[in-house]
């Protein structure tokens, strides 16, 4: 009996010792993460999660935030808007997180937003591009990814170099895809180009031959493609089978050119991709040292290189929330919301600082991310000729 009593004490002490290593006497700061870890866009969601974990580990290695360790509570939205809303509710109500990062796709983010307003918890949006996210008058939204309009504006200066005269669109049939078609279409019309067909595909669709046949009939020169990397692969392969013969430009930054080279092979040759992180030449990023360190850490953990163009979002999202908690001095939702407006630092993508967007009095935060254009040339990712340093 006595022996058992002693062993209980020992176990309690041992467990207590493990849970509270020196320097982290206080409870950890919880940050909720909602990503598509299964379903149609699972690959991208998992890369963002990996990036977020690196962000967390780096912060904790530097001694945490205000002397407290950061802990991620990660929820899977299954690539499904309904699940995103219930994941947000679960994180807020059951795990009591004071801030969330999520939820990858625009439709998933839009579905989670009413829950943020209902419970008053801020969310840093790391990937979604639909303009409506920051225009709905939800003051709990802080976006570090560019909406499609900002992306289109970023591409505007290259339109002549790309030789776009007559463009067609093929986009995933979601808030993101439809938003991108509108934004890039407006920008191209402003630049004097004609817009031909605007075709859509279901998120899970695998056969896009009907759309490609239709686009082939318009006689355009450039195809703007907006979807996740899996569908970009399929479209490039099927366009090659049908000899579409267009300059392809992908938007949204989720194209993972390295994965395209691997999976679409020659079909990806010559295509242009808008990206927000360039792991092929980290030194060209706004904070070259940070970018290099991230690329190295990613490799050290055995994560696939092609995930880096997605993974950086996770790091920047967690870093943004940690920065806000530091400024707020406490991990309360309302204080973090107020502090997010004061955040100003350079992440992997570049400077992160929020401007007001949306209806007055209920503005959301929108950062101005850096936008880059790369091209697949000879089976490698390179800067386009008109951007390469002479």
């Amino acid at each position, binding site marked *: 009996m006595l022996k058992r009593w002693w062993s209980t004490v020992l176990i309690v002490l041992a467990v207590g010792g493990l849970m509270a290593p020196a320097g982290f006497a206080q409870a950890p700061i919880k940050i909720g993460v909602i990503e598509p870890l299964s379903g149609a866009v699972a*690959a991208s969601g998992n890369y963002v999660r990996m990036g977020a974990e690196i962000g967390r580990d780096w912060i904790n290695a530097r001694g945490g935030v205000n002397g407290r360790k950061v802990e991620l509570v990660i929820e899977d939205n299954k690539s499904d808007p309904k699940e995103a809303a219930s994941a947000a509710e679960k994180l807020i109500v059951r795990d009591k997180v004071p801030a969330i990062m999520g939820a990858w796709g625009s439709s998933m983010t839009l579905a989670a937003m009413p829950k943020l307003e209902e419970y008053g918890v801020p969310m840093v949006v790391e990937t979604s591009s639909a303009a409506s996210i920051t225009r709905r008058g939800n003051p709990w939204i802080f976006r570090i990814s560019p909406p499609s309009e900002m992306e289109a504006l970023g591409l505007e200066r290259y339109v002549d170099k790309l030789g776009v005269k007559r463009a067609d669109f093929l986009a995933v049939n979601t808030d993101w895809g439809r938003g991108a078609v509108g934004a890039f279409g407006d920008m191209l019309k402003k630049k004097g180009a004609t817009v031909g067909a605007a075709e*859509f595909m*279901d998120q*899970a669709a*695998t056969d896009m031959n*009907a759309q490609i046949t239709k686009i082939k009939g318009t006689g355009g020169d450039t195809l703007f493609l907006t979807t996740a990397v899996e569908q970009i692969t399929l479209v490039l392969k099927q366009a090659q*089978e049908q000899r579409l013969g267009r300059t392809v430009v992908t938007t949204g930054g989720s194209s993972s050119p390295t994965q395209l080279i691997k999976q679409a092979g020659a079909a990806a040759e010559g295509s242009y991709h808008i990206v927000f992180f360039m792991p092929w030449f980290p030194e060209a990023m706004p904070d070259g040292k940070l970018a290099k360190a991230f690329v190295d850490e990613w490799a050290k953990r055995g994560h696939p290189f092609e995930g880096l163009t997605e993974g950086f979002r996770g790091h920047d999202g967690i870093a943004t929330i940690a920065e806000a908690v530091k400024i707020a001095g406490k991990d309360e939702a309302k204080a973090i919301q107020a502090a997010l407006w004061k955040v100003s630092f350079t992440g992997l993508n570049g400077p992160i600082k929020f401007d007001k967007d949306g209806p007055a009095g209920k503005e959301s935060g929108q950062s101005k991310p850096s936008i880059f254009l790369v091209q697949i040339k000879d089976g490698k990712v390179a800067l386009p000729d008109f951007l390469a340093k002479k």
Partner: protein
Amino acid sequence: MDALLQHLVNGLVLGGTYALLGIGLTLIFGLMNLVNFAHGEFYTLGAYATFAALALGGLNFFAAIAAAIVVGAAGGALCERVLLRPLRGESIDTTMLVMIGLWIALQNGELLAWGGVAKSIPHPFPTAPLTLGPVGIAPLRLFVVAAALALIVAAWLLIQRTRLGCAMRATFQDRETAALMGVKIGRIHTATFAFGSALAAAAGALLGPIFLAYPSMGDLASLKAFSVVILGGLGNLAGATLGGLLLGIAEELGAGYVSSGYRDAVGFVIIILVLLFRPSGLFARTERIG
């Protein structure tokens, strides 16, 4: 006009693969009275088995497809023995729930085993399309349609012309009588489920190289297979074949001439119309198996 021809060719190719998906499902339903929600997972299994045989086993493309079909049959037989045999005689709802459970378990198993990143399955065909006037078709797709049609004919021959097929039909017409005539009922169930699963795996093995292999690929395949089966009439092999072709062409023309955003809606509108006006399927007149 050129575009119309190309749309029709695309639709036929797509429809051929839908038909292959549909016949496996309709066989299992017609012969076993089982609503197989896990059908799409055998499609996924076929695609991953092909990938594994090529990338890890070092087999050639055609051997890999054959291997995937064998894996699908073995997987189906195992499922029937372990999950379905203890439930024989239970209501259709019970087995349906078990198959939903199997669907979820298999899909998450694939995610665990292979990760969420899609796998590209290499194939030996040239990517340049074969052209005939204004119409182009990739050699791989031509092979897939030919293989799908061959498999459909093989399935029909097996059921109509072999002793096993005869025993299958007898079992499901009247189980007791068939048993009295010396048919081993348990073996027939196992063989039927293995055969249906092998057809799904064959579809996965054939379509994997055209598309990509990823854990949730079976969901869309299941949806299309059920659509095809409803169009053709439950348990109707010829109906599933024609239903598959019809669905493929309808979707293709819908996307080409109505709106690509409503591509899948076109297929479902047809299904609703069929259910309203010919509830037992478009081709209900033709002879039912069993």
